[in-house]
């Protein structure tokens, strides 16, 4: 493993250095400064805002009864991942000339549709689970490995 680690580390270090060198030599000082602000702001925004919101949501969800919580967690996760992509589209919609055929859709309605579908699937899976747990007496109880 040691040889692989050294080879990967050297290759990675060289590519990284090359990229930084090109950025530093090809961008003018002002642009470089703005890029640096972008890099730091991206990490600060993620580590200081997005991640804490996610963790906070997780803590809040602990209050939800365990039986239904997994479906709520799943729906929120799927919904969040879709929303991340949809938000810039909503913000940018309709800003470009018509002949570009770009950003013409109603992304707000489409996001609502996708979130609604996500909620519907999660609810259906939850309902299925509740129904299974209410199987008539005599049938063996459904074993859940993870609960």
């Amino acid at each position, binding site marked *: *493993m040691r040889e*692989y*680690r*050294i*080879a*990967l*580390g050297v290759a*990675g*270090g*060289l*590519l*990284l250095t090359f*990229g930084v060198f090109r*950025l530093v030599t*090809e961008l003018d000082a*002002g*642009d470089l400064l*703005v*890029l640096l602000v*972008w*890099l730091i702001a*991206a*990490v600060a925004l*993620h*580590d200081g805002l*997005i991640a804490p919101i*996610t*963790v906070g949501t*997780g*803590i809040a*969800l*602990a209050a*939800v009864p*365990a039986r239904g919580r*997994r479906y709520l*967690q*799943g729906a929120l*996760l*799927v919904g969040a*991942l879709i929303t*991340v*992509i*949809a938000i*810039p589209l909503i913000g*940018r919609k309709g800003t470009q*000339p018509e*002949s*570009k*055929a*770009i950003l*013409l*859709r109603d*992304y707000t309605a*489409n*996001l609502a549709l*996708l979130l609604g579908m*996500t909620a519907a699937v999660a609810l259906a899976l939850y309902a299925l689970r509740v129904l299974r747990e209410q199987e008539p007496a005599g049938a063996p109880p459904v074993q859940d*490995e*993870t*609960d």
Partner: protein
Amino acid sequence: MHDEVMQPSPGPAVTGRTGASRPRWWPRFRSPLRSTAVTARLGRALGICFAVCFVTGMLSHYQYQPWSWLPVPASPVQAYRVTQGLHVATGVAAIPLLLVKLWSVYPNLFRWPPIRSMKHALERLSVFVLVASALVQLTTGFLNTLNWYPWPWSFPSTHRYLGYVLIGSVLLHIALKLPDIKYGLQARLGDADVLTEVPWNENPLAHSNAGTVPPPIMPAMDRRGLFVAVGSGIAAVVLTTIGQTVTPLARIGLLATREASKGPQGVPVNKTARSARVLTLATAEDWRLEVTGPAPFTLTLDELESMRSVSEHFPLSCVEGWSVGAEWRGIPVIDLVRRAGGDASSRVEVFSLQPNGYNHSMLVGPQVGAALLATHLNGERINLDHGYPVRLIAPNRPGVLNTKWLRRIEVT
């Protein structure tokens, strides 16, 4: 994301100097969903995405600046459509994947003490470079596909240099984490360690290698469920965006940026005649196509249109990841090249009426024989926004290099 308990752990005391000495208010992470096994699997998927993006990105760069000894091939006709469609689709998919990957290792941000040694400081710096370049690369790349440029630098070159930084950081990260990756990929999802802010080798609760540890209890979502949810979310994003290049999926393109069918003559336009400031020049009575070379000549529009024309099915494939197949009719470039005294081995440069921007491009090698000067698009006389009176179209070529509103062709 789930079931965090940010309070002192109720279990056996954490041993080791790091665990014992941290302040009481220091965040603690207990979600049993997080695991080296989860992170390694997410990382493997993300690493594959970054590799695909890097390779396809380099192929795209090569299209713009090919080596003279290795000209861009004219076939497969759809090659650039596929590689650039893949580049953008993979990059978009990597955005949610990156967020989940970062969630899975968020506790590592809260290692105590924050810095132990010079080596540790460098390692953390390398993680900062990795995370920062990944977030900025994916964000700016995505915004670029929305024609949104809220930054002062030139996108193509900065995107490329940052690509080197990112792929280098990824390789370095793999080198640093290889033992963890090996453990994570070999461990079973259900009973692998719980990843917390305490490093596994200091936390007997958190690492299966520390002895026989009972599998963590997951009262709600389990790790397999996590992957089902993440996979579903990413699949939804990919399926609803990729219709901008995979035409049959355009109908479910709820989040797709381009709609080819809504473009004039069935093809979207990136640079309009108005924004290129060619409206009067392109419609002028005295428009001429000048062809320079060993035997230079000039053509009026009538003369050009009376030349032998052929029809070809070439896609228009944009660097922004959208593409559409179209039927082009026009004069083979090679006919003009021969008439100017050149042949299939000539270098051909075409120039636009457009005063600035991407207003010229080069044809070399196989593309010379395959390119057309298009006068018709999908059965109609090509309109102003698509490059009237005549534009270049060639197979396996980025959209912007199919120069529009031609005025001069140089054969050398």
